[in-house]
């Protein structure tokens, strides 16, 4: 095997988050599936270690309907605060999740606009500050804005989760340029969340240097969710390898065969 490929062997590449070394850089959501029974199969095909679920959708009263009972034992739970409209509500949901035994990771999702489901960065910052202070591993879902991301970093977020496009829109990386700036400027892992509709878009995000991607709708609503999970797994690995390998500079114009400054070397 040649040296370059060996040096980017994906099995040596891991993402340190919340004190855990994650081998898989694909996070998966549990919403929108047609049955709970399919979820473990999807997780296996995706290779995911981190699984997000809306606390509001966890059915604690009916064990058969409780999504937590369908997750493999080693899964890292990432409860999200879907349904919260304010920092206060998000904090309350995080506390409920912790009390229910979901661990201390939380994805802050605060939405005040039910039409586009765009996150409220200001409320998100307030919730992040409080929960990080309390010792939670906080992953805030946000609209990609450099100023907000810096504040979230200062507030103690463990990673930043900018949206690629609105939740469930499957529109891909509409915010690509803004995410690229976050990747360059923020030292925390940038995990692209929401909007990724195709494996190629996940690969693109990873190639840009995203630390991970979170995919839910695109897998859950695919014709075959298990195959799609596998496709995303491969795409994320491919994109990551592409990033690590360091793609050659893309040339904007073709290089003139006789260099314009070639005369300098002459004589």
């Amino acid at each position, binding site marked *: 095997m040649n040296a370059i490929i060996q040096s980017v062997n994906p099995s040596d590449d891991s993402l340190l988050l919340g004190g855990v070394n994650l081998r898989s850089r694909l996070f998966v959501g549990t919403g*929108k599936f*047609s*049955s709970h029974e399919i979820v473990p199969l999807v997780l296996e095909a995706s290779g995911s270690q981190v699984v997000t679920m809306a606390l509001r959708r966890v*059915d604690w009263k009916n064990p058969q*309907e409780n999504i937590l009972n369908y997750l493999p034992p080693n899964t890292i739970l990432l409860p999200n605060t879907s349904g919260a409209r304010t920092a206060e509500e998000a904090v309350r949901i995080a506390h409920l999740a912790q009390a*229910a035994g979901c661990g201390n990771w939380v994805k802050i999702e605060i939405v005040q606009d039910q039409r586009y489901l765009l996150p409220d960065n200001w409320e998100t910052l307030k919730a992040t500050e409080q929960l990080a202070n309390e010792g939670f591993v906080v992953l805030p879902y946000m609209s990609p804005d450099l100023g907000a991301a810096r504040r979230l970093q200062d507030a103690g977020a463990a990673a930043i989760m900018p949206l690629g496009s609105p939740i*469930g829109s499957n529109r891909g990386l509409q915010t690509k340029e803004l995410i690229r700036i976050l990747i360059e400027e923020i030292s925390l892992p940038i995990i692209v969340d929401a909007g990724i509709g195709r494996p190629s878009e996940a690969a693109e995000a990873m190639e840009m240097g995203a630390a991970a991607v979170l995919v839910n709708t695109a897998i859950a609503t695919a014709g075959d969710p298990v195959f799609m999970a596998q496709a995303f797994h491969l795409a994320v690995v491919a994109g990551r390898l592409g990033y690590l390998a360091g793609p050659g500079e893309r040339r904007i114009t073709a290089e003139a065969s006789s260099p314009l400054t070639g005369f300098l070397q002459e004589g």
Partner: protein
Amino acid sequence: MFYEQITEWQQKLPESTWASFSGADVERVLARESLRPQDLAVLLSPAALSYLEPMAKKAQALTIRHFGRTIGLFTPLYLANFCSNSCLYCSFHTGNKIVRCKLSIAQVIKEGEAISSTGLQHLLLLTGESRTHSGPAYMEECVHALRPMFASLGLEVYPLATEEYRRLFEAGIDSVTLFQETYNEVTYAQVHPAGPKRDYHYRLEAPERACASGISSVNIGALLGLSDWRQDAFYSALHADYLQKTYPGVEVAISVPRLRPYAGSFQPSADPVTDAILVQIILAYRLFLPRAGITLSTRESPQMRENLLSLGITRLSAGSLTSVGGYSETDNVGSAQFEIADERSVPDVVAMIRAQGYLPSFCDWVNMRAKDAVGL
């Protein structure tokens, strides 16, 4: 106020417009990504009836993208059937000699326990309009009694004042359901000959008062078939759109109740809403309001509910009883408000949803305000 939009559109959309739309108009609308009110009118026009299949394909894809393959379940609990209104289409109306009663708080708890034991966690509380027998204070007591047992409590009662909605919201109500019945003021006056419900405007503005009180979700709708269904469907959807835009933090849902027979004799003069028309309305709602919940009650037959499930429905009532005190065999059982067409039990409805390739969801909410909200 939404009423201004109604008057504006009444001028823009005279009766003659509906027949003027063509198949080409429908095709143009189907090619659009987001729809305007004039596009909604095209989808409700006679021309769209020949395009139900392409409309259904698009509606199904949109629904799955935004809501997934998940159907939320809820059930109604009738708290009291005293009513001072005279709605011609309802068996609870004040002139009908029916058994009137109201549940005591002990009975409310018993009913709640019976419902909760079926696994259902979203409950809709209903009363007739009687400030004496079932006023806001009584509702609040019921909310306190039921709050610990359910993930979400909704209210489907007569229109209240903003302050009353706020109190009930603080007590633990998550959603308010209120149907305008018909947006046509003339029909509205005819079918509501007496009682406080005669006030069209107070009712029309009630969902907005609920939104302003801080409530998380509202569910509106027209009783389809009471008046011209095209107009009622158009204004219901426009109303939902208005609420979404004015109160972006509130989840807005729309119901599609069809007029059902009851123990009286009212027959509307408007054209009946056939199965195909009901489908057309649901599809038009979904395409115009991609993110709105669409609620279907047990007024529809099991077969119809099965067929409608994949077209855009997101919430279904299950195991419903429309009589006061029917769930726990208390001796205080009042008459039913309307006949339900789907009498299947909760497990049967769950099995039906699964057979259609959907996930029945018992719980989609955490109440974050009430002190005694559901404990984990």
